[in-house]
Protein backbone atom coordinates (compact mmCIF):
# COMPACT_ATOMS: atom_id res chain seq x y z
CA UNK A 1 0.00 0.00 0.00
CA UNK A 2 2.81 2.34 1.03
CA UNK A 3 4.66 1.49 -2.19
CA UNK A 4 1.53 2.21 -4.24
CA UNK A 5 0.92 5.62 -2.60
CA UNK A 6 4.63 6.54 -2.85
CA UNK A 7 4.60 5.70 -6.57
CA UNK A 8 1.54 7.87 -7.19
CA UNK A 9 2.98 10.68 -5.07
CA UNK A 10 6.12 10.61 -7.20
CA UNK A 11 4.06 10.59 -10.39
CA UNK A 12 2.04 13.52 -9.02
CA UNK A 13 5.28 15.40 -8.26
CA UNK A 14 6.46 14.76 -11.81
CA UNK A 15 3.07 15.78 -13.27
CA UNK A 16 3.00 19.03 -11.24
CA UNK A 17 6.58 19.86 -12.32
CA UNK A 18 5.54 19.16 -15.90
CA UNK A 19 2.55 21.50 -15.51
CA UNK A 20 4.85 24.20 -14.12
CA UNK A 21 7.31 23.81 -17.04
CA UNK A 22 4.50 24.68 -19.49
CA UNK A 23 2.93 27.27 -17.22
CA UNK A 24 1.92 29.69 -19.99
CA UNK A 25 -0.22 27.17 -21.84
CA UNK A 26 -1.61 25.59 -18.67
CA UNK A 27 -2.47 28.94 -17.11
CA UNK A 28 -4.60 29.87 -20.14
CA UNK A 29 -6.39 26.49 -19.98
CA UNK A 30 -6.88 26.95 -16.22
CA UNK A 31 -8.37 30.44 -16.64
CA UNK A 32 -10.81 29.36 -19.37
CA UNK A 33 -11.76 26.20 -17.48
CA UNK A 34 -12.32 28.15 -14.24
CA UNK A 35 -14.53 30.64 -16.11
CA UNK A 36 -16.64 27.87 -17.70
CA UNK A 37 -17.12 26.15 -14.31
CA UNK A 38 -17.88 29.54 -12.73
CA UNK A 39 -20.66 30.16 -15.27
CA UNK A 40 -22.14 26.68 -14.95
CA UNK A 41 -21.96 26.72 -11.13
CA UNK A 42 -23.40 30.27 -10.93
CA UNK A 43 -26.37 29.23 -13.03
CA UNK A 44 -26.89 26.09 -10.97
CA UNK A 45 -26.62 27.91 -7.61
CA UNK A 46 -28.89 30.72 -8.80
CA UNK A 47 -31.67 28.46 -10.07
CA UNK A 48 -31.43 26.34 -6.90
CA UNK A 49 -31.62 29.46 -4.68
CA UNK A 50 -34.61 30.78 -6.62
CA UNK A 51 -36.36 27.43 -6.43
CA UNK A 52 -35.72 27.21 -2.69
CA UNK A 53 -36.96 30.79 -2.21
CA UNK A 54 -40.11 29.95 -4.19
CA UNK A 55 -40.77 26.76 -2.20
CA UNK A 56 -40.20 28.53 1.14
CA UNK A 57 -42.11 31.70 0.26
CA UNK A 58 -45.11 30.20 -1.52
CA UNK A 59 -45.95 27.35 0.86
CA UNK A 60 -48.95 29.35 2.16
CA UNK A 61 -50.20 30.37 -1.28
CA UNK A 62 -53.99 29.94 -1.94
CA UNK A 63 -55.10 26.32 -1.94
CA UNK A 64 -57.22 26.73 -5.08
CA UNK A 65 -57.52 29.69 -7.50
CA UNK A 66 -60.36 29.73 -10.06
CA UNK A 67 -60.02 31.70 -13.30
CA UNK A 68 -62.62 32.11 -16.05
CA UNK A 69 -61.39 31.36 -19.56
CA UNK A 70 -62.92 32.61 -22.81
CA UNK A 71 -61.33 31.71 -26.17
CA UNK A 72 -58.12 30.66 -24.38
CA UNK A 73 -57.80 33.97 -22.55
CA UNK A 74 -58.48 34.80 -18.94
CA UNK A 75 -61.57 36.96 -18.49
CA UNK A 76 -63.35 38.32 -15.42
CA UNK A 77 -65.25 35.65 -13.49
CA UNK A 78 -68.87 36.17 -12.39
CA UNK A 79 -69.04 36.53 -8.60
CA UNK A 80 -72.14 34.28 -8.71
CA UNK A 81 -69.79 31.34 -9.35
CA UNK A 82 -68.74 31.63 -5.70
CA UNK A 83 -72.14 30.31 -4.59
CA UNK A 84 -71.81 27.29 -6.87
CA UNK A 85 -68.30 26.58 -5.53
CA UNK A 86 -69.51 26.81 -1.92
CA UNK A 87 -71.89 23.92 -2.68
CA UNK A 88 -68.97 21.63 -3.49
CA UNK A 89 -68.33 19.30 -0.56
CA UNK A 90 -65.00 20.08 1.14
CA UNK A 91 -64.94 23.83 0.42
CA UNK A 92 -64.56 26.01 3.50
CA UNK A 93 -64.54 29.53 2.05
CA UNK A 94 -64.60 31.34 -1.32
CA UNK A 95 -63.21 34.87 -1.70
CA UNK A 96 -63.53 37.11 -4.76
CA UNK A 97 -60.47 39.14 -5.73
CA UNK A 98 -59.84 41.89 -8.27
CA UNK A 99 -56.34 42.45 -9.55
CA UNK A 100 -54.46 43.62 -12.58
CA UNK A 101 -51.60 45.80 -13.77
CA UNK A 102 -51.07 49.54 -14.12
CA UNK A 103 -48.37 50.85 -16.44
CA UNK A 104 -46.53 53.93 -15.19
CA UNK A 105 -45.88 55.86 -18.39
CA UNK A 106 -43.40 58.19 -16.70
CA UNK A 107 -40.96 55.49 -15.59
CA UNK A 108 -42.11 52.63 -17.84
CA UNK A 109 -42.78 50.33 -14.89
CA UNK A 110 -45.54 47.75 -14.41
CA UNK A 111 -47.29 47.90 -11.05
CA UNK A 112 -49.48 45.07 -9.76
CA UNK A 113 -52.71 46.32 -8.15
CA UNK A 114 -54.58 43.83 -5.98
CA UNK A 115 -57.97 44.60 -4.43
CA UNK A 116 -59.22 42.55 -1.49
CA UNK A 117 -62.81 41.89 -0.45
CA UNK A 118 -61.81 41.27 3.15
CA UNK A 119 -59.60 42.83 5.79
CA UNK A 120 -56.43 40.70 5.79
CA UNK A 121 -55.91 38.63 8.95
CA UNK A 122 -52.20 38.94 9.67
CA UNK A 123 -50.40 37.22 12.53
CA UNK A 124 -47.14 39.14 11.93
CA UNK A 125 -46.22 42.81 11.58
CA UNK A 126 -45.72 43.05 7.81
CA UNK A 127 -45.83 46.82 7.31
CA UNK A 128 -42.85 49.12 7.77
CA UNK A 129 -45.31 51.93 8.46
CA UNK A 130 -49.08 52.52 8.61
CA UNK A 131 -51.97 50.02 8.45
CA UNK A 132 -54.41 48.32 6.10
CA UNK A 133 -57.67 50.15 5.39
CA UNK A 134 -60.64 49.37 7.62
CA UNK A 135 -63.79 47.70 6.28
CA UNK A 136 -65.85 50.22 4.33
CA UNK A 137 -62.98 52.72 4.14
CA UNK A 138 -62.43 54.12 0.62
CA UNK A 139 -59.33 55.18 -1.30
CA UNK A 140 -56.69 53.52 0.88
CA UNK A 141 -53.64 51.76 -0.51
CA UNK A 142 -50.79 49.77 1.00
CA UNK A 143 -47.80 49.89 -1.32
CA UNK A 144 -44.50 48.09 -1.78
CA UNK A 145 -41.06 49.67 -1.44
CA UNK A 146 -40.60 49.68 -5.22
CA UNK A 147 -43.89 51.50 -5.83
CA UNK A 148 -42.95 54.10 -3.22
CA UNK A 149 -39.73 54.86 -5.15
CA UNK A 150 -41.26 54.46 -8.62
CA UNK A 151 -44.05 56.97 -7.98
CA UNK A 152 -41.51 59.33 -6.42
CA UNK A 153 -43.75 59.91 -3.43
CA UNK A 154 -41.05 61.03 -1.00
CA UNK A 155 -42.93 62.30 2.03
CA UNK A 156 -46.21 62.67 0.08
CA UNK A 157 -48.81 60.05 0.83
CA UNK A 158 -51.26 60.44 -2.06
CA UNK A 159 -51.11 59.34 -5.70
CA UNK A 160 -53.43 58.63 -8.61
CA UNK A 161 -53.86 56.03 -11.34
CA UNK A 162 -55.77 56.47 -14.58
CA UNK A 163 -59.08 54.67 -14.97
CA UNK A 164 -59.84 53.14 -18.42
CA UNK A 165 -61.74 56.34 -19.38
CA UNK A 166 -58.57 58.34 -18.46
CA UNK A 167 -60.11 60.00 -15.41
CA UNK A 168 -57.95 59.94 -12.29
CA UNK A 169 -58.57 57.59 -9.41
CA UNK A 170 -56.95 59.02 -6.25
CA UNK A 171 -55.44 56.88 -3.49
CA UNK A 172 -54.04 57.69 -0.06
CA UNK A 173 -51.10 55.59 1.14
CA UNK A 174 -52.24 54.05 4.42
CA UNK A 175 -49.23 51.77 4.78
CA UNK A 176 -45.92 50.62 3.24
CA UNK A 177 -44.67 47.02 3.15
CA UNK A 178 -41.34 46.32 4.85
CA UNK A 179 -38.22 45.52 2.80
CA UNK A 180 -38.09 41.94 4.17
CA UNK A 181 -41.08 41.08 1.96
CA UNK A 182 -39.68 42.73 -1.21
CA UNK A 183 -39.59 39.38 -3.01
CA UNK A 184 -43.42 39.37 -2.80
CA UNK A 185 -44.54 42.97 -2.51
CA UNK A 186 -41.97 45.19 -4.24
CA UNK A 187 -44.32 46.14 -7.14
CA UNK A 188 -47.57 45.63 -5.24
CA UNK A 189 -50.43 48.00 -4.42
CA UNK A 190 -53.11 46.54 -2.12
CA UNK A 191 -56.46 48.27 -1.88
CA UNK A 192 -60.16 47.55 -1.15
CA UNK A 193 -62.24 45.64 -3.71
CA UNK A 194 -64.60 48.57 -4.45
CA UNK A 195 -61.61 50.83 -5.22
CA UNK A 196 -60.12 48.08 -7.38
CA UNK A 197 -63.33 47.71 -9.41
CA UNK A 198 -63.53 51.50 -9.73
CA UNK A 199 -59.92 51.68 -10.95
CA UNK A 200 -60.24 48.89 -13.52
CA UNK A 201 -63.78 49.81 -14.59
CA UNK A 202 -65.11 46.43 -13.55
CA UNK A 203 -68.77 45.70 -12.74
CA UNK A 204 -69.69 44.74 -9.17
CA UNK A 205 -70.86 41.33 -10.40
CA UNK A 206 -67.38 40.43 -11.66
CA UNK A 207 -64.02 39.57 -10.12
CA UNK A 208 -60.59 38.68 -11.56
CA UNK A 209 -60.44 35.32 -9.82
CA UNK A 210 -61.84 33.41 -6.88
CA UNK A 211 -59.74 32.01 -4.04
CA UNK A 212 -60.94 28.79 -2.46
CA UNK A 213 -60.01 27.42 0.96
CA UNK A 214 -60.64 23.72 1.52
CA UNK A 215 -61.44 21.98 4.79
CA UNK A 216 -58.78 19.29 4.42
CA UNK A 217 -55.56 20.31 2.62
CA UNK A 218 -55.00 16.66 1.68
CA UNK A 219 -58.09 16.86 -0.52
CA UNK A 220 -57.06 19.87 -2.61
CA UNK A 221 -56.80 17.82 -5.82
CA UNK A 222 -60.17 16.12 -5.26
CA UNK A 223 -61.97 19.40 -4.53
CA UNK A 224 -60.27 21.04 -7.54
CA UNK A 225 -61.48 18.20 -9.76
CA UNK A 226 -65.04 18.60 -8.46
CA UNK A 227 -64.97 22.38 -9.09
CA UNK A 228 -63.58 21.84 -12.57
CA UNK A 229 -66.44 19.44 -13.32
CA UNK A 230 -69.08 21.73 -11.79
CA UNK A 231 -67.84 24.84 -13.64
CA UNK A 232 -66.71 23.97 -17.17
CA UNK A 233 -64.84 26.82 -18.84
CA UNK A 234 -62.85 27.65 -15.73
CA UNK A 235 -59.17 27.08 -15.05
CA UNK A 236 -58.48 25.64 -11.63
CA UNK A 237 -54.98 26.24 -10.25
CA UNK A 238 -54.01 24.40 -7.05
CA UNK A 239 -51.22 25.09 -4.54
CA UNK A 240 -49.21 22.00 -5.56
CA UNK A 241 -49.50 23.11 -9.21
CA UNK A 242 -48.10 26.55 -8.32
CA UNK A 243 -45.11 24.98 -6.57
CA UNK A 244 -44.59 22.61 -9.52
CA UNK A 245 -44.73 25.59 -11.89
CA UNK A 246 -41.78 27.15 -10.09
CA UNK A 247 -39.87 23.87 -10.26
CA UNK A 248 -40.38 23.91 -14.04
CA UNK A 249 -39.62 27.62 -14.42
CA UNK A 250 -36.33 27.40 -12.53
CA UNK A 251 -35.30 24.00 -13.74
CA UNK A 252 -31.77 24.35 -15.10
CA UNK A 253 -32.56 21.79 -17.79
CA UNK A 254 -34.92 24.26 -19.41
CA UNK A 255 -34.19 27.75 -20.46
CA UNK A 256 -32.04 29.26 -23.12
CA UNK A 257 -29.30 30.28 -20.68
CA UNK A 258 -28.57 26.65 -19.79
CA UNK A 259 -28.21 25.81 -23.48
CA UNK A 260 -25.74 28.69 -23.95
CA UNK A 261 -23.67 27.58 -20.94
CA UNK A 262 -23.57 23.96 -22.07
CA UNK A 263 -22.50 25.17 -25.53
CA UNK A 264 -19.62 27.06 -23.86
CA UNK A 265 -18.62 23.88 -22.01
CA UNK A 266 -18.76 21.85 -25.23
CA UNK A 267 -16.58 24.48 -26.96
CA UNK A 268 -14.03 24.29 -24.11
CA UNK A 269 -13.87 20.48 -24.27
CA UNK A 270 -13.33 20.63 -28.04
CA UNK A 271 -10.52 23.14 -27.39
CA UNK A 272 -8.99 20.88 -24.71
CA UNK A 273 -9.17 17.87 -27.08
CA UNK A 274 -7.56 19.89 -29.85
CA UNK A 275 -4.76 21.11 -27.56
CA UNK A 276 -4.11 17.65 -26.16
CA UNK A 277 -4.14 15.87 -29.52
CA UNK A 278 -1.79 18.41 -31.09
CA UNK A 279 1.15 17.65 -28.76
CA UNK A 280 4.28 19.68 -29.30
CA UNK A 281 7.52 17.95 -30.48
CA UNK A 282 9.00 18.56 -26.98
CA UNK A 283 6.11 16.73 -25.33
CA UNK A 284 6.44 13.81 -27.79
CA UNK A 285 10.19 13.70 -27.14
CA UNK A 286 9.56 13.72 -23.37
CA UNK A 287 7.22 10.75 -23.68
CA UNK A 288 9.74 8.90 -25.88
CA UNK A 289 12.60 9.47 -23.41
CA UNK A 290 10.43 8.25 -20.53
CA UNK A 291 9.59 5.12 -22.48
CA UNK A 292 13.27 4.50 -23.33
CA UNK A 293 14.03 4.84 -19.61
CA UNK A 294 11.65 1.99 -18.95
CA UNK A 295 8.30 3.72 -18.35
CA UNK A 296 5.29 1.84 -19.65
CA UNK A 297 2.38 3.40 -21.58
CA UNK A 298 0.11 3.19 -18.46
CA UNK A 299 2.71 5.17 -16.47
CA UNK A 300 2.80 7.88 -19.14
CA UNK A 301 -0.98 7.94 -19.16
CA UNK A 302 -0.95 8.20 -15.37
CA UNK A 303 1.19 11.38 -15.64
CA UNK A 304 -1.22 12.90 -18.15
CA UNK A 305 -4.16 11.92 -15.94
CA UNK A 306 -2.60 13.52 -12.84
CA UNK A 307 -1.70 16.66 -14.81
CA UNK A 308 -5.28 17.05 -16.06
CA UNK A 309 -6.85 16.05 -12.74
CA UNK A 310 -4.66 18.42 -10.68
CA UNK A 311 -5.46 21.33 -13.01
CA UNK A 312 -9.17 20.44 -13.23
CA UNK A 313 -9.50 20.10 -9.44
CA UNK A 314 -8.04 23.56 -8.76
CA UNK A 315 -10.18 25.05 -11.57
CA UNK A 316 -13.27 23.30 -10.14
CA UNK A 317 -12.53 24.61 -6.64
CA UNK A 318 -11.85 28.18 -7.80
CA UNK A 319 -14.83 28.17 -10.21
CA UNK A 320 -17.36 26.99 -7.61
CA UNK A 321 -16.07 29.35 -4.88
CA UNK A 322 -16.21 32.29 -7.31
CA UNK A 323 -19.73 31.23 -8.34
CA UNK A 324 -20.81 31.15 -4.67
CA UNK A 325 -19.40 34.64 -4.14
CA UNK A 326 -21.05 35.83 -7.40
CA UNK A 327 -24.51 34.64 -6.28
CA UNK A 328 -24.22 35.28 -2.55
CA UNK A 329 -22.36 38.59 -2.47
CA UNK A 330 -22.85 40.15 -5.93
CA UNK A 331 -26.49 39.02 -6.32
CA UNK A 332 -25.95 37.19 -9.63
CA UNK A 333 -24.67 40.35 -11.33
CA UNK A 334 -23.92 38.61 -14.65
CA UNK A 335 -27.33 36.93 -14.96
CA UNK A 336 -29.50 39.71 -13.53
CA UNK A 337 -29.97 41.48 -16.85
CA UNK A 338 -31.24 38.23 -18.45
CA UNK A 339 -33.31 37.26 -15.43
CA UNK A 340 -35.04 40.64 -15.08
CA UNK A 341 -34.89 41.84 -18.68
CA UNK A 342 -36.68 45.12 -19.27
CA UNK A 343 -38.19 45.15 -15.78
CA UNK A 344 -38.10 48.67 -14.35
CA UNK A 345 -39.04 47.64 -10.82
CA UNK A 346 -36.21 45.39 -9.66
CA UNK A 347 -36.29 44.24 -6.06
CA UNK A 348 -32.87 44.27 -4.41
CA UNK A 349 -32.66 40.54 -3.92
CA UNK A 350 -30.50 38.91 -1.32
CA UNK A 351 -29.67 35.42 -2.55
CA UNK A 352 -28.31 32.86 -0.16
CA UNK A 353 -26.72 30.23 -2.42
CA UNK A 354 -27.92 26.72 -1.72
CA UNK A 355 -25.24 24.14 -2.49
CA UNK A 356 -25.99 20.45 -2.29
CA UNK A 357 -23.64 17.52 -2.78
CA UNK A 358 -25.79 16.49 -5.74
CA UNK A 359 -25.23 19.85 -7.46
CA UNK A 360 -21.46 19.66 -6.94
CA UNK A 361 -21.39 16.09 -8.24
CA UNK A 362 -23.45 17.16 -11.27
CA UNK A 363 -21.04 20.02 -12.01
CA UNK A 364 -18.06 17.74 -11.54
CA UNK A 365 -19.55 15.17 -13.91
CA UNK A 366 -20.50 17.81 -16.47
CA UNK A 367 -17.21 19.70 -16.51
CA UNK A 368 -14.31 17.70 -15.06
CA UNK A 369 -14.99 14.18 -16.35
CA UNK A 370 -15.35 15.24 -20.03
CA UNK A 371 -12.18 17.32 -19.65
CA UNK A 372 -10.24 14.33 -18.29
CA UNK A 373 -11.48 12.19 -21.16
CA UNK A 374 -10.67 14.94 -23.66
CA UNK A 375 -7.04 15.13 -22.48
CA UNK A 376 -6.19 11.53 -21.55
CA UNK A 377 -7.48 9.84 -24.74
CA UNK A 378 -5.25 11.90 -27.12
CA UNK A 379 -2.32 11.36 -24.69
CA UNK A 380 -2.84 7.61 -24.96
CA UNK A 381 -2.68 7.88 -28.74
CA UNK A 382 0.60 9.83 -28.51
CA UNK A 383 2.02 7.49 -25.85
CA UNK A 384 1.53 4.48 -28.05
CA UNK A 385 3.66 5.80 -30.97
CA UNK A 386 7.05 4.25 -31.70
CA UNK A 387 9.73 5.92 -29.55
CA UNK A 388 12.45 6.09 -32.21
CA UNK A 389 10.20 7.90 -34.72
CA UNK A 390 9.17 10.44 -32.04
CA UNK A 391 12.80 11.07 -31.07
CA UNK A 392 13.80 11.61 -34.70
CA UNK A 393 10.95 14.15 -34.89
Amino acid at each position, binding site marked *: MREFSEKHLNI*LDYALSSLWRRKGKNLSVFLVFTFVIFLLASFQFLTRSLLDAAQATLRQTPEITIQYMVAGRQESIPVSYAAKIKDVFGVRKVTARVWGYKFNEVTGSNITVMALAHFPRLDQEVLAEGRFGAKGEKGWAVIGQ*GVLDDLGLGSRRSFSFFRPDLTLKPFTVSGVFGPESNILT*YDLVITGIDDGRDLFGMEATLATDLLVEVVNPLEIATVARKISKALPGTRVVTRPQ*ILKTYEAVFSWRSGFAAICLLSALAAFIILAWDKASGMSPEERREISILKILGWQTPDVLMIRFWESFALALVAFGCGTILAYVHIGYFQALLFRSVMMGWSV*LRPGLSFVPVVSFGDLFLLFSLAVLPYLAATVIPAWRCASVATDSALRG
Partner: protein
Amino acid sequence: MRPSTLYAILMLTLAIVAGAVTVHGRQRALLEMDSSAVRDSLTRALGLTDLCLATEARYTRHPALTDDLAPFMDYPAALEHFPTGLFWAPPR
Protein backbone atom coordinates in the same frame (compact mmCIF):
# COMPACT_ATOMS: atom_id res chain seq x y z
CA MET B 1 9.42 21.36 -0.68
CA ARG B 2 7.86 18.70 -2.89
CA PRO B 3 5.41 19.97 -5.55
CA SER B 4 2.75 17.63 -4.15
CA THR B 5 3.09 19.31 -0.73
CA LEU B 6 2.63 22.73 -2.31
CA TYR B 7 -0.39 21.40 -4.18
CA ALA B 8 -1.84 20.01 -0.94
CA ILE B 9 -1.38 23.44 0.71
CA LEU B 10 -3.18 25.06 -2.25
CA MET B 11 -6.10 22.61 -2.00
CA LEU B 12 -6.28 23.09 1.77
CA THR B 13 -6.44 26.86 1.29
CA LEU B 14 -9.28 26.43 -1.22
CA ALA B 15 -11.09 24.13 1.23
CA ILE B 16 -10.73 26.70 4.04
CA VAL B 17 -12.07 29.51 1.79
CA ALA B 18 -14.96 27.27 0.68
CA GLY B 19 -15.72 26.41 4.31
CA ALA B 20 -15.64 30.07 5.36
CA VAL B 21 -18.06 31.25 2.66
CA THR B 22 -20.36 28.29 3.35
CA VAL B 23 -20.48 29.03 7.09
CA HIS B 24 -21.17 32.69 6.36
CA GLY B 25 -23.91 31.62 3.92
CA ARG B 26 -25.50 29.42 6.62
CA GLN B 27 -25.58 32.37 9.02
CA ARG B 28 -27.27 34.53 6.37
CA ALA B 29 -29.77 31.74 5.68
CA LEU B 30 -30.68 31.68 9.38
CA LEU B 31 -31.22 35.45 9.32
CA GLU B 32 -33.42 35.04 6.22
CA MET B 33 -35.52 32.48 8.07
CA ASP B 34 -36.41 35.15 10.63
CA SER B 35 -38.33 37.05 7.96
CA SER B 36 -39.95 33.93 6.48
CA ALA B 37 -42.78 34.20 9.06
CA VAL B 38 -43.62 37.65 7.65
CA ARG B 39 -43.71 36.28 4.10
CA ASP B 40 -45.82 33.28 5.15
CA SER B 41 -48.29 35.61 6.82
CA LEU B 42 -48.47 37.79 3.68
CA THR B 43 -49.03 34.96 1.21
CA ARG B 44 -51.73 33.48 3.44
CA ALA B 45 -53.57 36.74 4.11
CA LEU B 46 -53.32 38.35 0.66
CA GLY B 47 -53.46 35.17 -1.43
CA LEU B 48 -50.18 35.93 -3.19
CA THR B 49 -49.12 33.31 -5.70
CA ASP B 50 -45.86 34.53 -7.25
CA LEU B 51 -42.42 35.96 -6.55
CA CYS B 52 -41.71 39.53 -7.60
CA LEU B 53 -38.56 38.96 -9.68
CA ALA B 54 -39.27 39.96 -13.30
CA THR B 55 -41.93 42.63 -13.65
CA GLU B 56 -41.60 43.31 -17.39
CA ALA B 57 -44.29 40.86 -18.60
CA ARG B 58 -47.33 39.45 -16.84
CA TYR B 59 -46.31 35.89 -17.67
CA THR B 60 -42.97 36.30 -15.91
CA ARG B 61 -44.42 38.37 -13.04
CA HIS B 62 -47.15 35.80 -12.38
CA PRO B 63 -46.04 32.55 -14.06
CA ALA B 64 -48.17 30.42 -11.72
CA LEU B 65 -51.45 32.04 -12.83
CA THR B 66 -50.56 32.46 -16.49
CA ASP B 67 -51.55 29.95 -19.12
CA ASP B 68 -49.17 28.64 -21.77
CA LEU B 69 -50.56 30.91 -24.49
CA ALA B 70 -50.11 34.22 -22.64
CA PRO B 71 -46.69 35.03 -24.20
CA PHE B 72 -48.17 34.74 -27.71
CA MET B 73 -51.53 36.45 -27.14
CA ASP B 74 -50.88 39.90 -28.53
CA TYR B 75 -51.96 39.06 -32.07
CA PRO B 76 -52.14 36.00 -34.35
CA ALA B 77 -48.66 34.50 -34.97
CA ALA B 78 -47.17 36.82 -32.31
CA LEU B 79 -43.66 36.01 -31.12
CA GLU B 80 -42.60 35.99 -27.48
CA HIS B 81 -40.13 38.86 -27.33
CA PHE B 82 -39.39 39.78 -23.70
CA PRO B 83 -35.75 39.16 -22.66
CA THR B 84 -36.76 37.29 -19.50
CA GLY B 85 -38.35 34.65 -21.73
CA LEU B 86 -34.76 33.43 -22.28
CA PHE B 87 -34.27 32.74 -18.59
CA TRP B 88 -37.75 31.70 -17.47
CA ALA B 89 -38.76 28.39 -19.00
CA PRO B 90 -42.47 28.09 -19.85
CA PRO B 91 -44.56 26.61 -17.02
CA ARG B 92 -45.75 23.05 -17.63
